[in-house]
């Protein structure tokens, strides 16, 4: 009888401790290929403060962590401005902290390469990149992806020395698992 009570209390304590992490969506829920578009606003280009963009992303769980591959096509709106396409892949591995991940690349931020980390909170996967410019100023970029019934909402933000220089809000549809 006593043992059963102790086990029940232990189970209750364990379940309470895990409840916070349990409320977070599992990584597998974010897996898939998503396509969509959004609107960018910023002060870093006076000629097109509003830009049409495609914001494709693929999220692949791998060894407890995941790979994120994203393509951004910047159509621009100014006359003579070329369409540009940019694809990046970053791998993340688990850390000792639940639902916090670090980029696998061994990076020295002072060399100018971005330092990546990510977290899952609720139905949202946030990816961060810290870049330190040659003059010491920092740029912090975040991609916040929240699951929706049809795909995900994306909020992209770039801060330069604490000031917002660009943000993009977009909607993406899941097109492949």
């Amino acid at each position: 009888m006593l043992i059963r009570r102790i086990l029940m209390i232990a189970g209750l304590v364990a379940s309470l401790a895990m409840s916070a992490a349990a409320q977070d969506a599992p990584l597998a829920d974010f897996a898939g290929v998503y396509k969509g578009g959004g609107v960018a606003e910023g002060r870093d280009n006076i000629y097109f403060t509003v830009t049409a963009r495609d914001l494709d992303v693929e999220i692949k769980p791998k060894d407890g962590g995941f790979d994120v591959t994203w393509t951004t096509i910047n159509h621009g709106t100014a006359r003579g401005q070329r369409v540009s396409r940019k694809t990046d892949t970053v791998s993340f591995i688990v850390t000792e902290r639940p639902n916090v991940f670090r980029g696998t690349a061994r990076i020295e931020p002072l060399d100018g390469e971005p330092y990546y980390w990510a977290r899952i909170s609720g139905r949202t996967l946030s990816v961060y990149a810290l870049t330190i410019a040659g003059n010491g100023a920092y740029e912090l970029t975040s991609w916040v992806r929240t699951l929706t019934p049809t795909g995900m909402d994306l909020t992209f933000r770039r801060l330069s020395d604490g000031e917002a220089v660009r943000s993009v809000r977009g909607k993406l549809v899941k097109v492949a698992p």
Partner: protein
Amino acid sequence: MRRLLIAFFVALLAATPALAQDALPQGFYGHFAGLGLSETMDDGKLVEVKPRDFDVTISKSDNGFTVSWKTTEYTIRPRKSKLEADDETIVFVKSARDGMYGEKTPGDLAGGESAYWARVSGNTLDVYRLTVNDEGRHELAVWQRTLNGDSMDLVFQRSGETSKPRVVKGTLSRVKQ
């Protein structure tokens, strides 16, 4: 006479590397103390103002410099007045980029340790600290110290996802070389 000249140039050559190793303008080295005000914002509104005492000691170290600082914050309320002190020592070493310094022993950012870097520009020394908490949320702090003779102006700014934005401004005076 020739021997004297040779001895003089030998001494000069021996001294030159030591001078070249100085990371900061000479005036930064020493112990400074002073006071200022801490202003905390919430939702764009000023919600708290507190007086603060500052102490900072900057000394030369191998291939860089060491910054030790102590802050004492006063909370003044009837029967609830209190003092809270915080201190930290960071050893910075030269990076591959001019005027940029990283930690001698870099912390594991995604693992819960803070990452520090510094830049020197003229009479201004900026120290940056990025912290990622257990949930993966970040906080960025910047200490900007500008030297003006034996006086040092301090502007501290804190921003991010884990705490309310804060700005602290103060002036310190040299108390010891």
